[in-house]
């Protein structure tokens, strides 16, 4: 580790923190329907859309109506994307002549993008046409991100309203988020990315004659516009196979810095939106504080472990850290930081190959996802995930002192706690259940590229990433098989919707409750004690659930590596 490295980390944190309030303020105004700087331009578009769709912007939905609207919308998106991928060979904008995507891969990719996971079983430049990338992927990147934010808003309204029967309008939240938040930022951001060297062209691949006289076919495409929303919307699906490690997806140290900031910025700002909407910004900062503690601990472990290097390299006398799978322009620190950021949020873009990280360096990304990606998290998804944990933490605190738990003036009762537990428990069921299955059936065991405990880690990472809707991978796993395409897709769908629906049910139940005034016995939820309590509950719940599986994978690999052991495939 170097001083410069920590300065890069500090600069990243400072930039994100500086953006939280301005962006949080802007987003709150947008979601409340107040006038903003962009209203004169976008207002007519918004009202035009409502008129066309027959939506009354003032009419709101119950939690059930909100959920049904969301599900209908996603079902449409799923079918449309599946159809597009299956038919890309006969549709326009396919200069490389890519064939139709196979049914199992199309199912996996459709599930992946609709759930904001963006798991890459497809190869990007080697599988998809430009039309699939733009109309299918770029578009789902916007909508799945907007949906995440919409759902978080519904839950926040549950806390901020009293004796209310509605939690907002899905259609209005979706439209406003897309038009006023995601699109304008992406337009500027795309230009910044192109200025750093990311291509944005509809031209076919470039044929170059190298200095040594051979031909190099260089894939290009409308990359920048997709990268912008892939980062901002914490989607993470790459235009290219190597994702943000590809020099065309992330050409400079500066583009890398912007990309890391853009992964975190909306998720972090959502905590401020939460604070503002419940009328006490400190509540938002407390949530962000708990996220920050967990985040910095993760950065410390991954950075230290990658900088210390792997036993194979160190054994041959190399210094300079574990550079296998990392790009030189980012080096150790920007690769380690990116890995923690992308898994803390639900992004899943990678600027280095996580599969080649040291055992402990790769452990942190896995833990980040297993905790449910609540450290900043996916746009919106991180906030509602964290609020679910808040309910559990408050419940535990209530048990300790023997009184009905309350949060922000709402009594937390058995229905809310049951729903919270449902949301929390569906993740380990998918992650651990499918990992167990894959380690006993031949189709599952055919997947890993590495032998020994690292092979197990590859499987565990895949199902963890899928259920957590992250999308990053230990890329050695051959996931493009009927077995993995199907099981991973199920993991993604359950991991998304079985968290969303309980969260919406909580929103509905809370909105209907009266607000009780704080008394002397109320636990203040904006101070250090509460932050500590919350972090503790997250670590205990997550730790107890996942420690055994981590012990079989990264932990045993770390110990074996320290003892100088290596593992050969086929042995």
């Amino acid at each position, binding site marked *: 580790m170097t001083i410069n490295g920590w300065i890069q980390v500090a600069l990243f944190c400072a930039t994100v923190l500086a953006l939280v309030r301005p962006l949080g303020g802007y987003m709150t105004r947008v979601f409340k329907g107040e006038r903003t700087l962009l209203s004169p331009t976008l207002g007519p578009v918004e009202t035009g859309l409502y008129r066309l769709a027959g939506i009354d912007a003032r009419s709101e939905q119950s939690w059930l109506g909100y959920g049904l609207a969301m599900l209908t919308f996603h079902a449409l998106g799923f079918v449309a994307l599946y159809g597009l991928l299956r038919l890309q060979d006969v549709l326009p904008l396919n200069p490389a002549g890519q064939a139709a995507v196979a049914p199992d891969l199309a199912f996996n990719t459709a599930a992946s993008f609709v759930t904001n996971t963006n798991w890459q079983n497809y190869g990007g430049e080697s599988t998809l046409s430009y039309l699939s990338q733009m109309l299918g992927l770029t*578009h789902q990147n916007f909508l799945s991100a907007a949906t995440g934010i919409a759902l978080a808003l519904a839950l926040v309204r549950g806390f901020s309203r009293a004796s209310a029967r509605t939690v907002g309008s899905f259609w209005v939240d979706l439209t406003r988020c897309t038009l006023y938040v995601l699109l304008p930022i992406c337009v500027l951001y795309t230009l910044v990315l192109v200025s750093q060297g990311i291509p944005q062209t509809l031209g076919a691949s470039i044929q170059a004659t190298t200095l040594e006289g051979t031909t190099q076919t260089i894939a290009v495409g409308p990359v920048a516009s997709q990268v912008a929303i892939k980062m901002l919307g914490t989607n993470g699906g790459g235009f290219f196979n190597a994702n943000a490690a590809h020099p065309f997806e992330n050409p400079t140290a500066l583009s890398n810095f912007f990309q890391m900031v853009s992964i975190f910025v909306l998720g972090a700002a959502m905590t401020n939106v939460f604070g503002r909407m419940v009328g006490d910004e400190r509540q938002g900062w407390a949530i962000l504080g708990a996220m920050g503690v967990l985040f910095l601990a993760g950065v410390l472990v991954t950075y230290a472990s990658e900088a210390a290097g792997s036993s194979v*390299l160190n054994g041959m006398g190399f210094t300079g850290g574990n550079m*296998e799978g990392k790009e030189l322009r980012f080096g150790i620190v920007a690769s380690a930081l990116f890995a923690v950021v992308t898994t803390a949020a639900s992004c899943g873009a990678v600027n280095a190959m996580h599969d080649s990280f040291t055992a402990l360096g790769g452990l942190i990304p896995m833990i980040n996802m297993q905790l449910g990606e609540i450290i900043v998290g996916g746009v919106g998804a991180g906030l509602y995930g964290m609020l679910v944990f808040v309910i559990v933490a408050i419940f535990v605190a209530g048990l300790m002192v023997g009184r009905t738990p309350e949060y922000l003036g709402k009594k937390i009762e058995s229905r809310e706690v049951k729903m919270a537990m449902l949301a929390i428990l569906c993740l380990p069921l998918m992650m651990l259940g499918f990992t167990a299955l894959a380690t006993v059936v031949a189709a599952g065991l055919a997947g890993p590229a590495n032998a020994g405990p690292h092979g197990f880690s590859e499987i565990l990472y895949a199902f963890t990433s899928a259920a957590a809707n992250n999308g990053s991978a230990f890329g050695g796993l051959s996931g493009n098989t009927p077995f993995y395409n199907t099981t991973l897709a199920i993991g993604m769908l359950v991991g998304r919707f079985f968290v969303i629906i309980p969260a919406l049910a909580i929103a509905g139940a809370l909105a209907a409750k009266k607000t009780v005034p704080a008394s002397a016995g109320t636990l203040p939820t904006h101070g250090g004690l509460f932050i500590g309590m919350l972090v503790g509950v997250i670590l205990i719940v997550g730790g107890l659930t996942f420690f055994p599986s981590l012990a079989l994978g990264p932990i045993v690999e770390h110990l074996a590596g320290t003892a100088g052991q290596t593992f050969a495939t086929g042995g």
Partner: protein
Amino acid sequence: MLASLRPALVLFVALTAITGLAYPLAMTGLAAAIFPAKAAGSLIRRDGTIVGSSLVGQSFASPGYFHGRPSATVAADPADASKTVPAPYNASNSAGSNLGPTSAALAERVKGDLDVLRAENPGAMVPVDLVTASGSGLDPDLSPEAALFQVPRVARARGVSADRVRDLVAEQVEGRTFGLLGEPRVNVLALNLALDARLRQ
């Protein structure tokens, strides 16, 4: 469910048109107008032909050029399309090695590269980026140390003094952005183009 069908359909189609077509197409037009060279892929031309992109690494094997980092990219086997063969710096199929930290295959590969490098420049410390594959397999850069390590070989092959080659490397070193972000590096293609322009064999 039925009541929400019209808003769902209309919004889906409209937002698809806006975010999936209008946005990327408008950005393509804008980018081409403001940053034409970068939007097209930062291509480098020499005597009229495209020799590569300044951002994408390419494979160098002859002793008179600086070599980039190991690349794990592959291409379809011409003999059997279901298999792949190594194809370093294949810029239409980016990939890393995905070998884990306790992989015997990784240990073997690094050992092989290390033996070759030690024979080429005995006694010098081998920089780690010369034996590790990059994430994309298309890394355009080397660390300054890794470029300097190759100076004796390049000078020998070109029949010029090592000092002149070393000076050229020094000119091509880029520092951290704002002195802070990223790592110091040398673009291999730019360095080799400068070699060809200034120190002909």
